[in-house]
């Protein structure tokens, strides 16, 4: 989810992470996931389209490299579970969710690029529960920019970044955006 659709013309951009910083952050998250989950085979990395899916794929690669285990990945689309339907003049594409079933003994790690209000994560929790009842659900985000509107916190964070509410975060990932990996803060 790109959490940058709420304000008008930003005037300057501040680089926050480059490709190498993103790589290191994701590598560290991969290590933390290995530490926190004794039974890695039960873990599913479920990305939120579009960039969360790409981040989940990269995390799975790092985990395969370090722990020699191929863990499963999935997609969790939140569009049909959002609480702001009917308030936007345009609707983006809905993608099919894909999770390995049954979920009952699994640990689902929701993966997204930016954690902001927490409403996307709430929708993801709702979407997951329509597929079944996982043993545990955890949350990983590349950037946590604060301003939560719901009681939600991340288990794994690449970078904590204090922001003003009206600032925007822009994430570029090579395979999704066709731009070099980078995180920017857009200030007014």
């Amino acid at each position: 989810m790109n959490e940058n659709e709420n304000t008008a013309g930003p005037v300057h951009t501040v680089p926050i992470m480059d490709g190498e910083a993103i790589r290191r952050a994701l590598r560290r998250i991969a290590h933390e996931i290995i530490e926190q989950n004794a039974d890695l085979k039960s873990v599913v990395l479920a990305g939120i389209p579009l960039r969360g899916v790409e981040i989940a794929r990269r995390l799975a690669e790092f985990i395969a490299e370090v722990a020699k285990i191929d863990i499963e990945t999935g997609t969790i689309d939140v569009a049909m579970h959002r609480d702001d339907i009917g308030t936007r003049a345009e609707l983006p594409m809905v993608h099919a969710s894909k999770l390995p079933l049954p979920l009952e003994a699994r640990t689902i790690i929701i993966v997204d690029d930016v954690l902001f209000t927490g409403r996307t994560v709430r929708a993801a929790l709702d979407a997951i529960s329509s597929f079944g009842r996982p043993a545990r659900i955890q949350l990983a985000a590349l950037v946590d920019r604060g301003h939560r509107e719901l009681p939600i916190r991340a288990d794994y964070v690449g970078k904590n970044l204090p922001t003003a509410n009206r600032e925007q975060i822009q994430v570029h990932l090579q395979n999704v955006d066709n731009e070099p990996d980078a995180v920017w803060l857009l200030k007014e």
Partner: protein
Amino acid sequence: MNWNRKDLLGLRELSADEINFILQTADAFKQVGTREVKKVPALRGKTLINFFVEPSTRTRTSFELAAFRLSADVINISASTSSLTKGETLKDTARNLEALHADILVLRHSSAGAPQFLGQRLKSSVINAGDGAHEHPTQGLLDIYTIREKRGKIAGLNVVIVGDILFSRVARSNIFGLTKLGAKVTLVGPSTLVPREFEKLGVTVSHQIDSVLPEADVVNLLRIQHERQRKEYFPGIGEYTTLFGLTKERAKLLKPDCLVMHPGPINRGVEIDSEVADGLQSVILDQVTNGLAVRMAVLYLCGGIST
């Protein structure tokens, strides 16, 4: 692209991108049917009115189930139970429905253009569920969705539509949608019901079914609406079956991977033999299943934007 239309009136005014957008959205909603909980909260709190001035069971039920799966509340109104029988105009009936805060109006009407008339005047979303001999866009979309699902593409396919094209809204929606996506469409039927005029829409017209069947990738048989046929247009049921029915013998002309489609309800032994309707090439029941996903997508997109 993003979706920004509140109404679905026909496929004629949609771009190829918009049609593909609906089909891809339907992919996501088809998957909802495989979940443990087959229901999503997308239209929770919204009210949908199924306003069917002409009788219909399958289209109305399909819209109703699609609305349930999206958590909308549904009211059904048919011609016989509405005040239209007391002389109320369509516009007044619709304004009353809107005064009840209906968010989505699904309209079937015998007059072409009725959904457009209401769509321009109401804040609610208006979905055309068939208007006269004009369009039946969700039927066209579910036919196209089914072809795309089974064959993996639309562009370049030979699609043959057989029957009463002149009075068929299903045929028109199929023609507009399929030609926009690059299919080659051939219309077949008696010259009274398939006039050469249709060639202006970018399709081929034929009156000889046996010569077009061997090349077909898809054969879509329209229902012969014998309750509506007038003698001067229609040769009679027996003669129609002899000349244009997809009989067991005629089906041998088809390529082995040709799809056989029918929007239902089928007249067994008239436009199609039972052996063909129930045969391996038939995707008639897939069309019904896909209709649900396509209608969920349309209700979600048109009913989900702010107006």
